[in-house]
């Protein structure tokens, strides 16, 4: 088990590094960074000064190593815009994004798991088809538009929920639902197919031959085996949700990491952008690692 962990960790570190290099290179190479920072009205002299100041004339590798070295020590640079350490900016906004992500995941699981199980148990019935249709609708729904529609409906017309901001916990409900919608189709399908497979297995026949109750057969014997891929996908979906929080946070004006990233991108505040990409990549990789570990925990056969 320990060897497994070590190999996974080293692979994860390698992936992380690659992602960083790629994003670093992208930002430096896609255009003239100095020109973007200087703004549209800058003269050539201004651009030259900025290039010098930010060390943008050094070789790419040197720039990257310099940044990476600082990052390893926890110094993610200073924001061009706010002139404060980037880490501080991220840290302040992290709770909102994390809460949002976890809320979205919780709602997604609460909806997808029971519906997926129901669809599997009633496979082929009208209920099954109806549930699958819901999954299809969720997949096609543009999240940002759905958010806007909800704001108009629940915030404006019915006035049940706040239209933006997170002063109260109700502020997380609508964005959480929108976020959940992006994960529900995948989770629902996976639960359903996993349960269908599990229910067709020989050990279910044995369980029935033992006279166990229907509920016990479905929820104890089948679900445990079906749950394994669902759990790992759930962790991965959380990663996606955190990565995609940009859109939702802008729609609902939530002061989270995603909104910070978007702001920074539009205002060319690249130290922040770089740091957020690093941050999200690390979280995603950590979550997939977690997913693997949970898989091993749930399936005794994987424990070696």
């Amino acid at each position, binding site marked *: 088990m320990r060897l497994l962990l070590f190999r*996974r960790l080293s*692979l994860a570190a390698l*992936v*992380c590094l*690659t992602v960083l290099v*790629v*994003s670093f290179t*992208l*930002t430096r190479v*896609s*255009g003239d960074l100095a020109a*973007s920072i200087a703004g549209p009205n800058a003269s050539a002299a201004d651009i030259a000064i900025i290039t010098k100041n930010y060390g943008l004339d050094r070789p790419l590798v040197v720039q990257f190593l310099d940044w990476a070295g600082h990052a390893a020590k926890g110094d993610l640079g200073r924001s061009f815009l706010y002139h404060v350490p980037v880490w501080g900016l991220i840290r302040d906004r992290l709770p909102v994004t994390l809460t949002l992500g976890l809320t979205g995941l919780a709602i997604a699981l609460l909806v997808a798991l029971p519906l997926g199980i129901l669809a599997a148990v009633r*496979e*082929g019935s009208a209920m*099954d*088809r109806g549930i*699958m249709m819901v999954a*299809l*609708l969720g*997949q*096609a*729904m*543009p*999240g*940002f*538009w759905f958010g*806007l529609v909800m*704001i*108009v409906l629940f915030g*404006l017309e019915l006035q049940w929920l706040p239209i933006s901001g997170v002063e109260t916990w109700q502020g997380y409900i609508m964005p959480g639902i929108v976020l959940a919608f992006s994960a529900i189709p*995948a989770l629902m*399908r*996976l639960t359903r*197919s*996993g349960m269908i497979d599990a229910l067709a297995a020989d050990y279910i026949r044995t369980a029935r031959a033992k006279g166990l109750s229907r509920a016990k057969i479905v929820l104890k014997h089948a679900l445990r085996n079906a749950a394994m*891929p669902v759990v*790992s*996908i759930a962790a*991965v979906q959380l990663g996606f949700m*955190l*990565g*995609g929080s*940009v*859109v939702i946070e*802008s729609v609902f004006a939530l002061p989270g990491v995603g909104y910070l*990233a*978007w702001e920074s*991108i*539009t205002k060319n505040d690249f130290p922040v*952008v770089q740091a*957020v*990409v690093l941050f*999200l*990549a690390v979280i*995603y*990789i950590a979550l*997939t*690692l977690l*997913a*693997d570990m949970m898989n091993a925990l749930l399936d005794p056969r994987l424990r070696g």
Partner: protein
Amino acid sequence: MSAVVIAQDVIKQQLPARRRLPAFRHLATLLGALIVGAALLVAIFAPYLTPHDPFAQDLNLRLIPPVWMDGSQPTHLLGTDQIGRDYLSRLIYGARISMLIGVLTVITSGVIGITLGVIGGFYGGRTDDVVMFLITCRLSIPLILVALTVVALVGSSLAVVILTLGLLLWDRFAVVARTTTMQVRNLDYIAAAQAAGASRLHILVREVLPNIANHLVVVATLEMALAILLEAALSFLGLGVPPPLPSWGLMIAEAKEYMFFSPWVIMTPGVVLFVLVLGINLLGDGLRDLLGADLRR
């Protein structure tokens, strides 16, 4: 690593629901085909279908509601936007943008993904390890952020969006191509071709590709839907297709300021977007059943 987990997710998503009633399936697929077909026709024949120039502004005719509400005008069936441009015309040209982006992105990402996947799946071993590593890296990149960044740096344009999305959305192609190639690789006719002295390239193109094509077509439809949704999101955030081009996402963004006064402004492009993506998904699902692209066989 967990690309395997993702692969499982993708594969499971590719599995058709068993015992689905044929009638319902065919109906849904037909609906999907109709929607996609209509979108294609509208996109191609846009100049002949639009009643007005989608870029023509008339500040005297701002925010006229659509025909089913009071205050509408018969010349503008779906009303006008905040600077007087005919909504219906913009919607029709928006279809053009969406379809163009969908098709071109899928071609780009398809070429990249399929090549990687087939190579990894066919050669196995170290090569496959590299391919899996690349896929894992790609999956670890926060998609929207990187796309936004690139567009912000290079400048928004249709071409940039297509290229960016194309260079980023190849992962599912790669995973499915890889898995199916691995399944096909072990079949007898591959060994027979190798024994007959066929070159590797020949085998890949003439033997492997035709047999995995079914699955890839299904992936292509799903990726197309995803590309269209992503472009809409990017444009909504201001870093996709630039104004005054009538991307549906951009139209929703522009309408956002007025949504509290005239909610219908955000409805129409959103509904159309939703319907198109739904249609593509229905078509994709139906193709999967019809082509028998069941990855488990």
